[in-house]
Structures are given as C-alpha cells and as structure tokens.
C-alpha cells in the first residue's frame, strides 16, 4: 500500500479548514466590517475610500463605545451570561445523575436509555418550547401542579416570578425552557465519558477505605471533568445567544442579547449597531470555547 504523501494529508485537513474559512471566517469579517461602518439612510458606506490620491480608512468605533457605555447593553450582556450560567449549572445538576445511572445501567438497557434522551429531537424544537407556554399559562397542567405544591410562593420569594400564580414570561419560565431544551446536550457528553470509566478504580477506592460517596467525589467526578467541561460548553455557548426561548418564554424582565440583536436588525434597522452587538457576543463566547479546547487537548494528551 502506498503511504499517503504530504499532498494527501494536506487535502484531508484542507476540507474542514476551507469550510470554516468560507462559512465562518468570511461572514464574520463581513459582519465585523459592517459593525465599523457608517449608515447612510438605507445603504452602508464603504470603510475604505480612495479620494484625491489618498487612501482613507474610516472605522467608526462609536457603536462599540456605545456598547461599552450604555447601561442597557451592558445589563443585557450580563443577564445573558447569567441566564446561560444558571442554565448550565441546572443542566449539570440534573444531567449528572441522569448520565451516571445511564452509564451504570445494564449494558443491554443502555441503547434504549440513550434513545429516550434523544427522543425529544424527533419533535421540532420550536413546538416543544411552544408547548411549555400552554403548560405554564394560567390553569396549565404544570402551572396547576406548581401551585398545588406551593412552589410558586417560593419562586415569588426568590424573585423568579413577580407573584404567585404568574409563571409565564418570567425568569423562571425562561430558565425552565432553556434547561429543558439543553439538558440532552449535557447528558450525552457526560454519559459517553462516564461509560468509559474503568470501574475497577471505584473498587480500588473502596479497597483503600473510601465509602461509595467519597469514591464518587474523589474518583468519579474528577475523572469525568472532560465530560463536564464538554457538556457545560455545549449548553453555555448556545444559551448566551439564545433568541427563540427568551422570545417565547421570557418576559420584559428577561432581556437577552439575542433579542437585542433582533431589535437592532429589524426594528431599528441599524445594521452597524446590530453587527457590533453580534461581534461582541462572538468574542464573549470565544473565551469559554478557548478554555474548552484547552481542556480537550489536555484530556487527549492524558489519555495517550
């Protein structure tokens, strides 16, 4: 068999790189360019101008300055990050035991359990989020149950809903919707990580005097760190920019950046401002992504 030469190897790597270049980097540069452009009623002015034999580059940074100074934008960014973080933590708390019991279930049962986790994907995401509206609205199935057990009073006390009985269009309904939607993205990487774990390590821990609880915290959790990081990133990153769920389940209190973006584009028709918002959001998301890939590289190195 002929060994693939440098050309072959380059071709294999070139395909994904070309994809990213054409469908991610170029559009992003277009967006970044618009974000520093001036608007003239309905047209966007070029930032590079050739006038009287002089090359003039006009980059309007006013949009970014506004973003950094305007309380509304800052609060929106902050609340996006907070909602994404809360959702991530909730997904982890609910998803970890889920993934753990799936990974420790009988081998023959595991494909079925995995199927159940993925089952929601068979139905449109939009429909499922919309269904929550019906469940949470007054006299909705879930709303009634929550009122019955008195959970709404606790939620009101925590300022997650304005008052007892008012569940829809609140921080509560938003977080509920996001947690529900993104839970599988937490469970799947955690499951694949936990299923790979060498169970003899738990026996070794027990042999050395660790109770099941201690062994879980000292061995299972540290060893599943790569899965936790992967799941957290898969939940956190899309949550920051989430538009549909805040639109359907959120309310006036729950301004998120995706909504702001929509408003700038379609209500204010201010494309440069909208692009500035988008670029800033991408940068906000790139930081955790960089952390994620660093962990991944480390995990791969440790595994080899």
């Amino acid at each position, binding site marked *: 068999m002929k060994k693939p030469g440098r050309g072959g190897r380059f071709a294999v790597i070139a395909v994904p790189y070309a994809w990213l270049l054409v469908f991610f980097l170029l559009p992003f540069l277009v967006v970044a360019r618009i974000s520093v452009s001036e608007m003239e009623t309905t047209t966007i002015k070029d930032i590079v101008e050739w006038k009287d034999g002089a090359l003039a580059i006009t980059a309007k940074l006013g949009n970014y300055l506004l973003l950094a100074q305007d309380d509304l934008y800052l609060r929106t960014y902050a609340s996006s990050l907070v909602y994404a973080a809360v959702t991530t933590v909730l997904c982890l708390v609910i998803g970890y035991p889920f993934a753990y019991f799936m990974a420790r279930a009988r081998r023959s049962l595991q494909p079925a359990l995995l199927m159940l986790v993925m089952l929601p994907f068979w139905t449109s995401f939009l429909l499922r989020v919309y269904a929550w509206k019906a469940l949470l609205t007054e006299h909705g199935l879930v709303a009634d149950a929550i009122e019955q057990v008195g959970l709404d009073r606790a939620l009101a006390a925590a300022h997650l809903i304005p008052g007892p009985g008012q569940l829809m269009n609140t921080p509560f309904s938003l977080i509920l919707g996001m947690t529900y939607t993104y839970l599988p993205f937490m469970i799947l990487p955690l499951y694949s990580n936990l299923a790979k774990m*060498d169970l*003899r*390590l738990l*026996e*070794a*821990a*027990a*042999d*050395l*005097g*660790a*109770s099941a609880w*201690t062994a879980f915290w*000292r*061995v299972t959790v*540290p*060893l599943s*760190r790569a899965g936790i990081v992967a799941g957290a990133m898969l939940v956190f990153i899309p949550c920051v920019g989430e538009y549909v769920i805040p639109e359907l389940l959120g309310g006036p209190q729950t301004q998120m950046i995706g909504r702001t973006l929509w408003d700038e584009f379609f209500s204010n028709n201010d494309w440069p401002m909208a692009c500035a918002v988008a670029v800033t959001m991408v940068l906000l998301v790139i930081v955790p992504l960089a952390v994620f890939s660093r962990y991944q590289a480390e995990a791969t190195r*440790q595994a*080899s």
Partner: protein
Amino acid sequence: MRVLLENRGFATGARMADDAFLRIANLVKEFDGHRAVDDVSLDIAKGEVFALLGSSGCGKTTLLRMLAGFETPTSGTITLDGRDLADLPPYVRPMNMMFQSYALFPHLTVFDNIAFGLRRERLPATEIAQRVDAMLKLVQLAPYARRKPHQLSGGQQQRVALARSLAKKPQLLLLDEPLGALDKKLREETQIELARIIHDVGVTCVMVTHDQEEAMTMASRIAVMSEGRFLQVGAPAEIYETPASRFVADFIGNVNLMDGTLVVDEADHVVVDCGDVQHRIGHGITGTRGMPVTVALRPEKIRIRRDALTSPATPDVGVNRAHGTIKELAYFGSFTVYHLELASGRILKVSQSNAERQQGAQLTWGDAAWATWTDLSPVVLTQ
C-alpha cells in the same frame, strides 16, 4: 534468593491449625447456578505468602474478590484474626489489594495515589507525608512522587500499586496477578523485588496467579485450583515433586504421563508396567496389584545417552530405561529438550542441563539414544 528461602521456611514452620490467621471455611460462590468457588476451606498462618494457582476461570479471582469484599459468598465463612468478615464492606476490611493492571488513579500523582487510603483515615497531613515518603523509599520511587501514573513505565506503575496497597499497613495483602502486566525479563526482576518487599514488611499475603513460576518463587504455599476446588495445597516443592493427581502433575511444569498397571506392590517399592516401559519406583502406595495407575516422570529427571550404561541406579536391565530415536531437539542454551520416540511410538520428553560446553559429538536429530532414570525419579498417581 536467600530471602525467599527464609521466608518459606518460616511460613511452613508456622503452619498449624490453631494458628490460623485467615480461615476460609466451606466457602461457596454461585453465579446463576454455576459454582465458581465450590466448598473451599483453607487456613493461612500469619506471615505466610499463599498463592492461588490455576488457569483462567478456575475460581481463583472470585475467591480473592470474596476476601476483599467485592463479592458476597453464597455460603461459608471467612474469618481474619478471629473476626468474621461477612458483614464488613470492602472499605472497612483491614486488607488491601493490588489490582491486576494496578487500577492506579489516573488523575492523581504517585504521591496522592499512595496517600489516598491514608487520607480516608483522616490522619494528620504530616503523618501522611511521612508514611508516603517511607513507602516511596521502600519501592524506590522517591524521585517520581510528583509524576502522574501515565508518565511511568509498567514496572514503576506496578511498584506504585504495591506501595499504595501497603501504605495502610494492611493485616492481609491481596495480589491479583501481580506481575501479569509485565514482560518476561522485567517480570523476573520484579518477582524477586516483590518477594523481598513483602518479606521485609512481613505482611500476610494471598496472591492469585496463572503463572506457576510466579507462584513457586514467591509463595510459601500454593493451592492448585480447578473448577472452583482445591486439587492440592502444599509447599511449591511438594506440589512439584509429589503431585497428588494427574491434573496437578500436568499443570505444574512439564511431565511425561504414562498409564500402566501395578504389577509389584511392596512396602518400599512398586513396579508399574506401562507396556513399552517398566518402572521400578522407590515408594509404596495404597493400592492393589493389577490396578490401573499413572506414572509421572519429569523430563529433567531423565538422563539421555548414546549407549545404555548399567549403573547402580538402574540395577535391573529392562526397567527405568527406554530406547528410541531423537525426533525433536530444542536447544535453550542452559539446557536442551529432546523428544525421544520409542519403538511403540510413545514420545518421551527429556531435558538435559548443558553442564559442559557442547562439543562436536552431542546427540542430534535421528540419533538412537537411551533414556535412563532412577527409582527415585517417577511418582505413581492413582487419581
């Protein structure tokens, strides 16, 4: 090797029933109706190094896992130092195990791996550090304390695993195929090192192995296991020189097994007729004339030469000797193995140590040769 012999002498001397440190009584473990361990009883004295030897699936690992508490016996009892272990979960049993392929925690350093058990006892940090350092010195890994397991060689990982299982000063050390994951050369070195450490620490030890050399060099006593039962329990030499059954003779080392009939049955000797070979064997057995028996004869206890010498060792012409042609020959350096084909077609395995450097006239393929042995060489098996 002196260490090993001392160790062995001590332990065999201490082997008395009322002295039992670990007592296994009528232990049974069933999996779906199949008996993995079938009514096993055993006493192990303090300081003994005991090996459970058998091929895979013989129940030795299940027995070890019941000692550690990872499997619950179907019936029977295990007592350690007079204390019934039945209700003790693994994490409170006063014993530690060195796992097959070690099960070191990959996310912890060598130091933290060894300290893991000590930290569970909530010892003060300074004491933990002292104990871990002592363990690292014992296994000669002090410079590697900050490394992660994946940065160590197989032999070093094995020593970390040993240090980790000894750190809590267990009353009983369990070893599951302690050298199984090492290659041959390293295994030979580690075997002696491991035996030295266990002896220095003086811990009572039960090991599981499928490797007879490992069992014989390290253990003071061996139990040969098959299908969940002990076939023979004894010192290594005992098991090798006087196997109790065909299975044990065949399992431990190389052997020529010859079926025959008991023709002379005296108090001090017997004669067995195997058709083409007559054996005069210098020990009596409990049997009757005419009963079918098997003669076991180890290859290294046979001499092979070009001509039949009559010597005081083989007084009767016609017994304890055989004539044939050399069918196969394997030169191992320190010794040579010959396959001698007798006129009847029987193959007799003979191994001869190469005490002198081989010169021109040695035996080779197709040569006719005589095999001779003394009446102290073979052993009669009735099972």
